[in-house]
């Protein structure tokens, strides 16, 4: 019996080695093909990625909870030591905020009175929000994205703004059934239309994989200073205006950098806001087809021209 097993192994081992070699070559080709296809049509393989994310997100949700809990516990222990100092800091801050509250109330009254005078609408409806938990943050040198545990099932759509209690985190770029991927402000693909207060200078906040993204497409004579607040302008019609983004951290001859307000180390939950005053291209194309019918074929136009 043992002898038979050995002779069988002697026969199958070279076959197995051959199969292994073939599998290696075939899978190398498949990997290269995937890279090329992904470059040509990212939507095709994006669907595969979201399927995998959908399947894994429940597991990650379970695993990430004790990690977050332990981090919170560690942070609380640290806070205990700084309690007295923090208390004094909070008292001073509370005093300042109470003063701001009075100012805000006065401005709200004044604003309402002016709107009534001009017969303007009371303002835009607040955007709808979906709360989601950050379950995966791969980090790494290439992309800055996070995965959240809310997807199309809970009404998440592509383009939604992701915010936390401090301000803008990023925007949704991929949506699965139970998961969504958020492109962080710092990713090199991120472009957010912003304005700098108080001069309301418009610019684009462009991520470059560094901790502090830069402002590009500045106006001709920008009136900016270090420490000024940067908020979303809402000019893209996708992100709501007025969301806190950060503060100007440095102004060089050729670069203005912004320190985001978000505490990346404590990014546990985000709210995904839907705000679309401008129709997304797909919806617009569908509507155009419904109203005007299908577009004429390209060849006809060429044949008609002299």
């Amino acid at each position, binding site marked *: 019996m043992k002898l038979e*097993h050995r002779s069988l*192994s002697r026969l199958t081992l070279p076959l197995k080695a051959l199969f*292994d070699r073939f*599998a*290696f070559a075939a*899978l*190398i080709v*498949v*990997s*290269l*093909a*995937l*890279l090329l296809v*992904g*470059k040509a049509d990212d939507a095709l*393989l994006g669907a*595969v*990625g979201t399927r*995998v*994310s959908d399947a*894994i997100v429940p*597991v*990650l949700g379970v*695993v*990430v909870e004790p*990690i977050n809990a332990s981090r919170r516990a560690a942070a609380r222990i640290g806070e205990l030591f700084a309690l007295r100092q923090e208390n004094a800091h909070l008292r001073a801050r509370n005093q300042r905020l109470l003063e701001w509250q009075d100012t805000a109330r006065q401005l709200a009254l004044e604003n309402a009175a002016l709107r009534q005078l001009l017969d303007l609408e009371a303002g835009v409806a607040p955007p709808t929000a979906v709360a989601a938990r*950050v*379950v*995966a*943050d*791969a*980090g*790494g*040198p*290439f*992309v*800055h*994205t996070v*995965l959240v545990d809310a997807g199309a099932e809970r009404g998440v759509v592509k383009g939604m703004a992701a915010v936390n209690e401090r301000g803008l985190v990023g925007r949704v770029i*991929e949506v699965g059934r139970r998961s969504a*991927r958020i492109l*962080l*402000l*710092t*990713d*090199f693909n991120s472009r957010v239309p912003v304005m700098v207060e108080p001069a309301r200078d418009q610019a684009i906040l462009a991520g470059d*994989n*560094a*901790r502090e993204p830069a402002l590009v497409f500045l106006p001709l004579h920008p009136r900016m200073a270090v420490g000024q607040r940067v908020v979303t302008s809402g000019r893209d019609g996708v992100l709501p205006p007025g969301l806190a983004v950060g503060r100007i951290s440095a102004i060089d001859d050729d670069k203005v950098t912004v320190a985001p307000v978000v505490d*990346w*180390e404590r*990014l546990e939950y985000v709210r995904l806001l839907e705000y679309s005053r401008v129709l997304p291209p797909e919806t617009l194309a569908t509507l155009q087809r419904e109203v005007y019918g299908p577009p004429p074929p390209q060849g006809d136009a060429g044949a008609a021209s002299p």
Partner: protein
Amino acid sequence: MTGAWLHHLDARLRALLPLATALLAVLADMLPLLHVGPASVTPLATLCVAFFWSLYRPDLFGAGAAFATGLAHDALAGLPLGLTSLVLLLVRHVVVMQQRFFVARSFPVIWCCFVLLALAALALRWSLACLWWGRLFAAQPMVFELLLTLALYPVATPLLARAYNLIPRTADAS
């Protein structure tokens, strides 16, 4: 009869440990354990696990397992599909090709080999990413990722050795 069947099933399940630990490493790579911001880098636990199993049980961590592990990593990390798969496949192939060299070597020698291989693997991944996106990524995060990965390997090895001891050494498991 039932006993033999259960024994066979047990051996089969234990033979899946290399792939299971590799997928766990993928999950570990996704967890915000050592993150200090979006510009942060984490060790690539997947590479450590792939190297370990390619070295000690290449029969149970085949090319298919390396490919699947890389694909899962790419899909979850939002990287181009095939990027990490390609790197892990090459790492496995190099280790299997040099199997004779590794026999009965001490841990420091193996770790030194891991240093060289991880350097080559991460540099290849970085170059492929630069080509794919058509932009030059900063090399500094890649260097940090490499250093963290090198530091992780001696920590991960005892844990993986425990999994290794659970797998029967007979051909039955393969």
